């Protein structure tokens, strides 16, 4: 039964990785930019989650506001930081993104203080027993929320006219434009959705750890980059699978290798090994 518990714990962590990494892979797929500052928006989502819950007592409201506000900020990041340098070589956007990420962490430090913030009355901390499994309500919310959000994204992308326009723009922006699709609006949509999902991940992490701090995005940012490489850059399905796999590997690793390597080291060892064997990613064609 330990294996089952470890798998579920891994899926909880993997869900968080999935919510973060999807936005990153969407941005890469559309613009070929490694959007490092994405993790800064994740952190901001966490702050909104804690601060709004503390102020209003409503976690659902906090999630909603965090997603919408951070989604709009994601559009601004594109408009102000990336759009002006789109015709430059890719490393220019990468450097801008890293700079922005560092700036965001410093701004959070100045605005919210260098120490962590917690919920005054942490919600969803009760433990639920499902068959043999003990799970915190927050962990259940993380998994259910991820399924709902990613499922919603899949329906939007796969079943709606705008979703089809979005996928077409990823395939061939020039042709999409020739058929009247406004590719700038598609980019806004892309950044809104990716950033809103990262914000949701931020709120959930804040819930699971009962803590937000300025640097909480650092490790997820490296891991999410590695995950999207693993999943095949720009490949949403591959990214989701890689995120969940990484969560489960970490979960087992901490039990069986925990004395030699810590959780993050296990994750990176796994990523390095996979990329040595399959540099094109888990599902990419050679």
């Amino acid at each position, binding site marked *: 039964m330990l294996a089952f518990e470890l798998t579920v714990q891994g899926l909880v962590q993997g869900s968080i990785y999935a919510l973060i990494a999807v936005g990153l892979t969407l941005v890469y797929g559309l613009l070929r930019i490694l959007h490092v500052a994405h993790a800064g928006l994740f952190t901001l989502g966490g702050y909104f989650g804690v601060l709004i819950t503390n102020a209003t007592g409503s976690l659902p409201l906090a999630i909603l506001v965090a997603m919408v506000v951070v989604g709009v900020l994601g559009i601004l990041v594109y408009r102000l930081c990336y759009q002006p340098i789109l015709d430059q070589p890719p490393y220019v956007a990468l450097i801008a993104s890293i700079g922005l990420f560092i700036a965001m962490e410093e701004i959070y430090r100045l605005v919210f203080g260098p120490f962590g913030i917690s919920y005054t009355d942490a919600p969803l901390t009760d433990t639920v027993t499902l068959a043999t499994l003990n799970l915190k309500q927050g962990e259940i919310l993380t998994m259910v929320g991820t399924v709902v959000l990613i499922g919603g994204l899949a329906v939007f992308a796969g079943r709606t006219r705008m979703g089809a326009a979005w996928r077409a723009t990823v395939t061939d922006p*020039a042709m999409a434009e*020739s*058929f*009247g699709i*406004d590719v700038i609006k598609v980019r806004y949509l892309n950044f809104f959705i990716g950033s809103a999902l990262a914000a949701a991940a931020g709120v959930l992490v804040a819930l699971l750890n009962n803590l937000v701090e300025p640097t909480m995005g650092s490790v997820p940012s490296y891991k999410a980059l590695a995950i999207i490489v693993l999943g095949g850059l720009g490949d949403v399905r591959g990214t989701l699978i890689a995120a969940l796999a990484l969560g489960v590997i970490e979960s087992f690793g901490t039990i069986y290798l925990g004395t030699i390597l810590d959780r993050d080291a296990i994750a990176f060892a796994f990523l390095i090994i996979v990329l040595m064997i399959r540099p094109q990613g888990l599902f990419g064609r050679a």
Partner: protein
Amino acid sequence: MLKLVDLTVGYGAFHATHGIALEVRAGTVFALVGANGAGKSSTIMSIAGHTEVHGGCIEFDGQDITHLPINDRVRRGIALAPEGRRLFADLSVAENLMLGGYARPRAEEAANRDMVLDLFPRLRERLDQRAGTLSGGEQQMLAIGRALMAGPKMLMIDEVSLGLMPKAVDICYAAIARLRERGITVLLVEQSTKRALEAADDVCVLESGRIVWSGTAAAARQDPAVIEAYMGLAGDGAHG
């Protein structure tokens, strides 16, 4: 319908055409022929807004569209079936058609789709299939169908027959004839002059970015050697 005036287009410092002038009359089929590298695609893609214009202007329906944003051109009535088809390969046939009509009111979609499927019944059986898995001929049909979904006044088809089986070429040219009957203007690009001369009202031969012959297709059919000579001069050595 379409007028190119002293049009020079290109890429950075390179000119792909050198001040070409031509006029496509409304309701006719116009063939732009010439050897590989003559500048046919560059010309078509400049009308669609993708290739930079270095000089001259493009008039469509009496208005100067030289610097119009790309996504406004389809709303003015210009639709494109580009070289290499450039379908949305991961999307289904149905989705490709739907996006072809993206600029039109949704209320027109069903009727336009019926019109396209009536023109290319082969696509009807393939609606749920990924566009990338179609045969070459089916892909060309879909590329033309996708463009027709935009309800264009003028349809541009780059390389109608390139790489297609003879049967698929027949289907595409039959469709072009039917579109002409319905009053849709067609600007087509061909390397195979024979088919183009049969289908067209007017013809223009491009060589190294310059127009070296233009006139009616009837005149060209009378004396195909003239055109063949220009094509031959441009060095493709093809017979036909």
